[in-house]
């Protein structure tokens, strides 16, 4: 019987078996950031252990950092301490850190791929649930807690029970105005917020293989929002073309060896998966969320479903009603950013919608690029000028209003159309009301000052 891509990678990384359920899994790459690492470093030092493989570790400060005036000391005392702790810890353990101001600095799941630190066939972890992003390259990449961060520091391994496998096929072609973000919001709305718990997802099918690497990252990023351990897409020519000449990708003779190995990374035709779903890309509309978890999503022109009181708490928090339409609802905030949608293609897409237009006067619209490299690229392409002319603020890289850990919070009771990945109660600030959408939809809403179908602007 054939093997799935997931099984091929998993079995290649087993160091030992604890019992029939738990394996000791070798971890190729470990990303760290300032929020989930300090206690892990402290634990290491308390037990007189050292970081075992510092060269396989990469650090950045992203969750807590301001997105303005990054050249100045961080104003918030606790944030500054936490970021300083990361700097100290990386120095003491010989870990490469791309701190604020470094040309490679940015959100952890944006910089790994753009540097070629993320490569196909790997096991990759980080103390952050959106680590699933890296699965776009054909990886087993998943989020871990701080105790597990310490385990990887000390041994470059983790104890893991092997999840079951799920394949999600998306066939057909996306309609105009419909993006990778809409695909994943659609999928989550069908599978539900816990529907993939205990599974590792593989995305396949024509609509998936047509996606660029950045679009694949958007899809894999939100795998966790349906409870999946992670999500991956088999590497192909699009993957290899993206990686060639990236700073840390294999070079010279090693490049061809790598491509030969990566070309063997696919699910065999006769492999059997534990669960399988199929969807048509043509059924996907521009999506929008109405509730307080990511599966509460509908097409932009659809009414909020009536679930007979099951959604009562959510709808009360969002001050919305079953049967109502989100379209034409006035909104005051638009956030374009996060590890889901903050790469150069996302910024280009926004620029196309807003070129020659101005945002609505009452809207605060800010764009947080995923990394310094993305920001520089946007400037070079003249995109920054388009943003400024339209009244959008282009800031400096960081997680920002995705989780409102820094100053970038959405005020109590305000609606924010956001290209991020979670609309939980209070996610963007206490009492904030998050509406998840694609960069195209978010851009259109900023122009209109209300929720609209982007296709009204781009046709």
């Amino acid at each position, binding site marked *: 019987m054939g093997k799935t891509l997931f099984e091929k990678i998993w079995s*290649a990384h087993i*160091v*030992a078996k*604890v*019992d029939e*359920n738990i394996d*000791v899994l*070798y971890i190729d*790459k470990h990303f760290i950031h300032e*929020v*989930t690492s*300090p*206690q892990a470093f*402290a*634990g290491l030092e308390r037990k007189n*252990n050292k970081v075992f493989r510092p*060269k*396989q570790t990469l650090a950045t400060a992203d*969750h*807590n950092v301001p997105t303005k005036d990054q050249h100045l000391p961080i104003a918030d005392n*606790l944030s500054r*301490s*936490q970021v300083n*702790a990361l700097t100290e810890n990386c120095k003491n353990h010989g870990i490469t850190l791309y701190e604020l101001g470094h040309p490679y600095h940015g959100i952890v799941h944006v910089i790994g791929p753009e540097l070629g630190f993320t490569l196909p*066939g*790997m096991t990759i972890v980080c*103390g*952050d*649930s959106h680590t699933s992003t890296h699965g776009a390259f054909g990886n087993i990449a998943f989020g*871990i*807690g*701080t*105790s*597990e961060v*310490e*385990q990887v520091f*000390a*041994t470059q*391994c*983790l*104890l893991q029970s092997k*999840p079951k496998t799920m394949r999600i096929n998306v066939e057909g072609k996306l309609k105009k105005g419909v993006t990778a973000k809409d695909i994943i919001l659609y999928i989550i709305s069908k599978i539900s*917020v*816990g529907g993939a*718990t*205990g599974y590792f997802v593989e995305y396949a099918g024509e609509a998936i293989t047509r996606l660029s690497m950045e679009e694949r990252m958007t899809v894999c990023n939100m795998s*966790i929002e349906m*409870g999946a351990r992670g999500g991956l897409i088999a590497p192909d020519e699009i993957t290899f073309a993206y990686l060639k000449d990236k700073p*840390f990708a294999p070079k010279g003779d090693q490049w061809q060896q*790598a491509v030969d*190995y990566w070309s063997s990374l696919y699910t065999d035709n006769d492999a059997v998966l534990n669960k399988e779903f199929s969807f048509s890309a043509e059924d996907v509309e521009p999506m929008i969320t109405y509730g307080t*978890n990511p599966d509460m999503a509908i097409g932009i022109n659809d009414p909020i479903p009536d679930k007979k009181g099951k959604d009562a708490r959510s709808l009360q928090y969002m001050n919305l009603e079953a049967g109502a339409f989100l379209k034409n609802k006035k909104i005051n905030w638009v956030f374009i950013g996060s590890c889901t949608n903050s790469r150069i293609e996302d910024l280009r897409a926004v620029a196309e919608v807003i070129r020659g237009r101005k945002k609505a006067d009452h809207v605060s619209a800010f764009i947080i690029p995923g990394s310094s490299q993305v920001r520089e690229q946007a400037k070079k392409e003249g995109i920054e000028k388009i943003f400024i002319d339209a009244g959008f603020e282009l800031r400096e890289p960081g997680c920002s209003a995705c*989780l*409102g850990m820094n100053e970038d919070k959405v005020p*109590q009771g305000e609606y924010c159309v956001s290209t991020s990945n*979670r609309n939980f*109660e*209070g*996610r963007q600030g206490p*009492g904030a009301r998050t509406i998840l959408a694609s960069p195209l939809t978010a851009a259109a809403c900023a122009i209109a000052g209300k929720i609209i179908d982007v296709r009204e602007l781009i046709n």
Partner: protein
Amino acid sequence: MEKFTAITSSAIPLPVENIDTDQIIPARFLKAVERKGFGENLFRDWRSDENNRLKPDFVLNNPQYEGSILVAGKNFGIGSSREHAAWALYDSGFRVVVSSFFGDIFKNNALNNGLLPVQVTEHFVQLLLQQISKDPHTKVTVDLHHQLICVPSTLSIEPFKINEYKKTCLLNGYDDIDYLLTLKDKIEQYEKTSEYIHLTRTT
């Protein structure tokens, strides 16, 4: 970590589904560099309003309810991987969370910190909630050794599953890291012999 063998305690009901870790511990409280002190911000935005006044209708503010067992709606602990959620619960005195379904990452984090996630049928969760509603001081016993949860006063009882290795760790207070450190030789052997590893090396 602290050992966990068995516990008998009254239980606190929180019959909300899909409780995510942002509710358990909001992001703005993740700035500390220690493991301690997160208890005071457990469910912060459900407990207190924007002026830091306690919300009278939230269960943790109701003196009738107390104990080390939390009975929660299904799909508990979804969302962010923040282990701080497990720390906040533990720091507040919880040692068990009972639900019919758990987020994966939270479940692992809980197990790594001596906080036992007990997965039972939704039917049993409803039974517990009914009994607690009749009498907030209902005692619930969780026995890890026998993998049983019961209400002695009504004899309601249900078994729960747990991986043998994780059970051994909890019963003895072992950390995964100690086990992993005994495997250093095997790990280095793997690094030398793995066919693919040289292709993953960063220059």
